[in-house]
């Protein structure tokens, strides 16, 4: 087990290296810092002076990989790759192009993201699994037919419409909750309840369909027939046998998402003006702040790889058949 974990951890290293090199190529080689400077400073009539200053302030004026002008180890360290990319391995995100401390930003903004993303995930899964179980319980009836038809309709609506419609209905027409905003204190729930509801509803269509197929896969299995042959009632069969087996793909599917809860949801946070990492990312994209985008790419990848690792571990916990070595 521990050998397995160490091996998986070691496998993460080349993955992170790959992500790092890919982002380095995208952000510094395909387009040079000169291009970024020109983009930031405005296209026309930017003097070489201004560009040089802009690059110097942000440390983009170093050579990419090898500093000819420096001595000793500085030949390696005094480069963009070392300063901007290697630091990411140690979660040293540096400063944004606007001069903000990205690491500090991430630390403060991840809490609102967690506050909205965690209950969304938990509630979403709970609702979807219960509805899917209900549909499976009533399979081959009109309830299943119309339920599935409704799911297809629900998943054919763009998530933007759920948010816009929800804000209009609950925020403006019914005036039940504030349309957007966030408060860290005890009143946070008033701001969270609408995005929470909307994210749960917008996920029902595809979620219920997905869990239903998981359940139906199990319902056809031989051991379910054995359970029925024991005389067990339909509910008992569903809960102790079908659900217990389907939990394996369900749980492992969720575990991979857990670390990514930190980065929050892009759309929800941006629409509801929640100061989390999702809206941070969107702002960075819209302000074309490459330093933040780069940091978020790296952070997102790390968390995803962590999620993969957790998935492997969770298999051993929920599936007695899996022994890792």
């Amino acid at each position, binding site marked *: 087990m521990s*050998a397995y974990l*160490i*091996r998986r951890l*070691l496998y993460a290293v080349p993955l992170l290296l790959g992500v790092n090199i890919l982002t380095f190529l995208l952000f510094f080689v395909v387009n040079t810092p000169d291009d970024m400077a020109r983009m930031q400073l405005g296209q026309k009539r930017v003097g070489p002076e201004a560009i040089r200053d802009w690059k110097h302030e942000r440390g983009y004026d170093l050579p990419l990989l090898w500093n000819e002008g420096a001595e000793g180890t500085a030949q390696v360290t005094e480069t963009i790759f070392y300063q901007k990319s290697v630091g990411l391995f140690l979660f040293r995100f540096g400063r944004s192009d606007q001069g903000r401390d990205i690491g500090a930003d991430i630390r403060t903004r991840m809490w609102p993201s967690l506050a909205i993303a965690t209950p969304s995930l938990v509630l979403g899964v709970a609702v979807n699994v219960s509805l899917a179980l209900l549909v499976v319980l009533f*399979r*081959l009836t009109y309830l299943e037919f119309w339920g599935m038809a409704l799911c297809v309709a629900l998943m054919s609506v763009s998530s933007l419409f759920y948010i816009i419609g929800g804000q209009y209905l609950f925020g403006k027409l019914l005036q039940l909750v504030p349309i957007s905003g966030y408060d860290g204190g005890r009143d946070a729930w008033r701001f969270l309840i609408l995005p929470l509801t909307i994210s749960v509803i917008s996920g029902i269509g595809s979620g219920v369909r997905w869990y239903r197929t998981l359940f139906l896969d199990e319902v*056809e*299995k*031989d*051991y379910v*027939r*054995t*359970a*029925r*042959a*024991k*005389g*067990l*009632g339909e509910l*008992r069969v569903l809960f*102790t*046998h079908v659900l*217990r*087996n389907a939990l*394996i793909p369900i749980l492992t599917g969720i575990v991979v998402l857990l670390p990514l809860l930190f980065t929050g949801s892009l759309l929800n946070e941006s629409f509801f003006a929640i100061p989390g990492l999702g809206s941070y990312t969107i702002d960075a994209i819209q302000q074309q702040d490459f330093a933040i985008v780069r940091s978020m790419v790296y952070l997102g990848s790390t968390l995803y790889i962590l999620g993969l690792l957790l998935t492997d571990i969770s298999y051993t916990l*929920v*599936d*007695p*058949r899996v022994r890792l*070595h």
Partner: protein
Amino acid sequence: MTGAASVPLLQVANLRTGFLQGGEVVRAVDGVDFHVGAGETFALVGESGSGKSVTALSVLRLLPQNGRILSGSVALAGEDLLQLPELMMGRVRGRRIGVIFQDPQTSLNPVLTVGTQIGEVLAWHGLRRGRAAADRTLELLEQVGLPEPRRAVSAYPHQLSGGMRQRVMIAIALAGEPELLIADEPTTALDVTLQAQILAVLKTLQCDLGMALWLITHDLGIVAEMADRVAVMQSGRIVETADCKRFFARPEHPYSRQLLERLPRLSACRNHRDAGGDAPPLTLLEVRDFKVYYPVRKGVFQRVVDQVRAVDGVSLELPRGRTLALVGESGCGKTTLGKALLRLIDHNEGELRYDGVNLSRPGSDDAQRRLRAPMQIVFQDPFSAMNPRMLVGDIIEEGLRALRPEIGHDSRRERVETLLVSVGLPPDARIRYPHEFSGGQRQRICIARALAVEPRLLVCDEPTSALDVSVQAQILALLVDLQRRLGLSYLFITHDLGVVAEIAHEVAVMYQGRIVEQGPTAQVLLAPAHPYTRRLLAAVPKLRCG
């Protein structure tokens, strides 16, 4: 001994069952009448697809979603089960009727412990609770003869072997103390030696508990050993019901007679007239110290810490124009050996000589490819052995295209048609797809495909065990005929000693990667030297009454 004269426990009358397929009902059981008396053993015999399992599932009302009971009645001690509400039916299943399904691999819930799965029955039917339930579980596991029942209680199914799992299935079925036990092919998925043990357990338990046993099987050997009465089923109907003694002595229905005739007998060892002249046959294939290992990797850097010895130092000689049967239970390495001989799997050590040419030294890819023609393979499952997306003609000529590209289109087509005729199929089978043929016909196509490149050696990997008994005999006859006409050599891999007796000149018995005994068929089967061979032979069900 219990007789059939008592009041019937289960009375099935005019049962019709069908499946909804594309808006139409396809009949699976078509008007079946039979009864099972209290305490007796009743066997329902038939080939796969004859509707015997569907009959059992209909009685239990456990048909798959598209299954429909169309008419008839099923009376358990006078009470019509088909009229019961679902809730009441739950008190019959598991409590008054227990079931054992064919495949213990898939019939147990993989994520629940054995104890939970047995205890569930006790609790649900209100038989035992708490400590008493735990004691009863243990008692049941002891009853079915599970070694170390205490450890088995907390084990998961995957930690048990196939035979142990089937014992657990029996324990589950017995937990409700049923009056009737339905055993649907209880030993088909198991090896011969295990088969005998499971059958013995069933027999003892039935005697001890005095319950009725309804045995569903395709194997007349098992019927002869177990049953009081037997019913033969063919395409959804029961064609003959008889007392077991009478049945084996004087089968009445032609189909019953056909089934009995096809039953392979060990005593019918192949006589060696067709072996050729007096001169000792020349060796075609020679294997020395052949080893195939699979590495076991462990630790952070996945170092190879151990080897699974699938084939562990085998030496064989296969004479020209003869059949060598390779016998052994599943997992003994016989299939691995067959594939390694064809170089579909790399071997780690040893020498492989075909007609004096050393094949184990890898030459260039192209040279290796050219050396493939003389050795071909016929697989067990004729359904997965052919690409469903290709026409039969394309399947057969594929080898010609690859190894004999110089043959033109027209003569290739001609050869395909000749091959089809020689395996007993019409030439226009060429332009049809594999799924349009039955299992036996498919196996003929597979043989034609192998013959297309004019091999001198065929590795036949259980070529008949996926087929029905009546078809098995035809395929065996075809193989014998082809051997005589073309002078082929066969390496015949099988677990079925009856087939061995019918087809093989020589037998090699394989056990845990090694050959433990080798010799002429009659000698090995009738006077086995190795204890393992003796165990194998002892496990073959004998025709008690016949």
